[in-house]
């Protein structure tokens, strides 16, 4: 398949991994921020062909995983109302809060529908004028413009029975919080390719300039990821800090201005709580001004309470790359993909789920 097979070519992959092997002289810690990178690294079995000295750490880049349990309880509470249809991305459905998941709420009778786009939720609202359709708005910069566009559409078409449960998060403030934590000892950062398409590569330059971190923006095919790791190795060896764009077929310096305009039109930044990272100023978004009524927490006056994470669950440390899944006492024993406790085990892009599914420990 065009634009895929070229980047999976085993000869190319082999020569890139040999080049990385040649460049690495000391143990190096690189964080991949994006959950899709985590998955791609596992799915293509790249760990097996990378040097042992290269330590890949997974960051807080799975939108499901960073959603705190108190918020999940609030989703379930709204979903349980008889006058509500909840629309959600499939990954969210099995994440447990303190009293069950959306899947449990559905088994108890809640009308919860899996959608692939917020536009599907608009259609559900059109088809069910007597119900309030609530879209669970999770996701980073890549998903947020779509949600903004759907709110604009609902506003233009006067669809009053559609709203979102705002839980979106933006990446740069979270990365800044991570960088302030000196115990992470990172040498380099694989910046998220999809997020960069929207934000542009410039959005990450503060990490190089202010925090002295080598950065490379990576695509999602094996050769993309290895090329970005190679770029990081070169920066690390030179002792230089900059953002190398290794995904030029999709990412520009300025990003997608049109998409960002949509987001600015509809949303305003608010403080937001991240699982594992705590509350981060300006890292969340809620609909503003004339769009404020599309916020279900405002419309139904919903309070979101802060709930501690389950005892023993290390998702927080795992999201920061401080701990490996295998260091969690629950991993693979009490917490498995079929009966997950922490969100990192639920989401397709969760670090624990990837470790479990792809048997990282044993291969």
């Amino acid at each position: 398949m065009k634009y895929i097979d070229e980047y999976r070519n085993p000869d190319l992959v082999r020569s890139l991994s040999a080049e990385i092997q040649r460049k690495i002289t000391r143990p190096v810690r690189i964080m991949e921020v994006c959950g899709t990178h985590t998955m791609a690294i596992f799915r293509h079995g790249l760990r097996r062909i990378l040097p042992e000295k290269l330590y890949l750490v997974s960051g807080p880049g799975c939108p499901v995983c960073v959603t705190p349990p108190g918020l999940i309880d609030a989703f379930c509470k709204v979903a349980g109302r008889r006058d509500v249809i909840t629309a959600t991305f499939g990954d969210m459905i099995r994440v447990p809060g303190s009293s069950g998941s959306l899947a449990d709420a559905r088994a108890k009778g809640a009308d919860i529908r899996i959608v692939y786009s917020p536009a599907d939720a608009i259609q559900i609202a059109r088809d069910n004028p007597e119900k309030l359709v609530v879209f669970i708005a999770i996701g980073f910069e890549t998903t947020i413009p779509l949600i903004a566009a759907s709110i604009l559409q609902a506003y233009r078409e006067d669809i009053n029975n559609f709203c979102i449960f705002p839980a979106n998060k933006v990446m740069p403030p979270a990365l800044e919080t991570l960088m302030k934590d000196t115990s992470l000892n990172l040498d380099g950062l694989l910046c998220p390719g999809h997020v960069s398409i929207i934000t542009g590569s410039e959005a990450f330059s503060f990490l190089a300039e202010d925090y002295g971190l080598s950065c490379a923006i990576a695509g999602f095919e094996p050769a993309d990821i290895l090329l970005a790791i190679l770029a990081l190795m070169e920066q690390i060896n030179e002792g230089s800090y900059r953002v190398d764009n290794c995904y030029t077929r999709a990412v520009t310096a300025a990003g997608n201005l049109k998409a960002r305009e949509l987001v600015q039109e509809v949303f305003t930044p608010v403080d937001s709580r991240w699982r594992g990272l705590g509350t981060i100023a300006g890292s969340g978004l809620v609909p503003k001004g004339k769009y404020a009524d599309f916020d279900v927490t405002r419309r139904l006056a919903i309070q979101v309470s802060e709930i501690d994470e389950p005892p023993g669950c290390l998702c927080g440390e795992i999201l920061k790359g401080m701990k490996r899944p295998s260091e969690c006492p629950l991993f693979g024993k009490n917490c498995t993909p079929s009966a997950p406790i922490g969100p990192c085990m639920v989401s397709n892009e969760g670090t624990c789920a990837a470790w479990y599914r792809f048997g990282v420990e044993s291969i």
Partner: protein
Amino acid sequence: MKIPDKTHKQITLDHGSGGSASSELIESLFLEYLTDPVLNRMEDAAVLNVRGKKLAFSTDSFVVDPIFFPGGSIGELAINGTINDLAMQGARPVCLSLGLIIEEGLGFKDLERIIRDIAHACRKAEVPVVTGDTKVVPRGKADRIFINTSGIGIVEEGTDISPARIRKGDAILLSGSVADHGITILTSREGLEFQGKLQSDTCALHKMVQGILGNLLQSDSISALHALRDPTRGGLATTLSELARSSSACMEIFEKEIPIAAPVRAACELMGLDPLYIANEGKFIAIAEEQYAESIIDVMRSFPEGQNSIIIGKVTDNYPGRVVVHTGSGGSRLAEPLTGEPLPRIC
């Protein structure tokens, strides 16, 4: 926040996914109460000794949504599904039962179309429906139509197909492309645009299996075929995991050998789905002694439903009970059975 109670208070869709939650339900509830030496083997079909003859007996229920899809309908699926469960024990299917649970309000034309599809599938497979039952439930108590079929087959003398016979050095054979059925159902349900060239692979596999057995019998090597399994829900990776676990062998497969139709691959890439976990309804995996693998492949390729048959890997002892995938780009990883519900109600 407390650690959630693991005893699920209700049945969730996970329990019917064919993945690990289904296995847990079967082992912790059904086998607990219904324990029986034949049932406990947990094969797709029970093999019973009746007056010196080996009979295979199997049942399956079909709740697919939508009931009509490119390449087939719930009717064909119900016939082919049970025939394939019998075929995977090496049985020659003899007859089927047909149970219909119909929701009030189903169009007569739709029902007629389903019954026509059932008749067509039976004729093609040369296996008749010999008994049946119909129930109608009030609107909203079922979704249009649910079908149960059961089937009886005869296992010929000398046939011994069981995961317990899998040995190190065996070849892993696959009868064609993967993920066609699951992706077709998903895209037709979601109204996604690239459904043009996608088609379910639903078909009966018993003739191909009988072809293999007949050929091996001729060369007095029927024991060379060790195991058969159709990778339905959970797909190729989940089915291989089950075979690996029940044989304590390691299944090593090569991603680049696994046939995937171009539109199926495109759909999987677009939706972020792994085709190795997507359901099939007309494919099987055969595990056989390596020296016979090529001749078995030749027989499989002589059937239209097996024309893309290929050897995809081998049985080793590197990671007992696990599946190793050698990826197309030169890496390798383990593959665990499916959990969750990526594609509910696909059969």
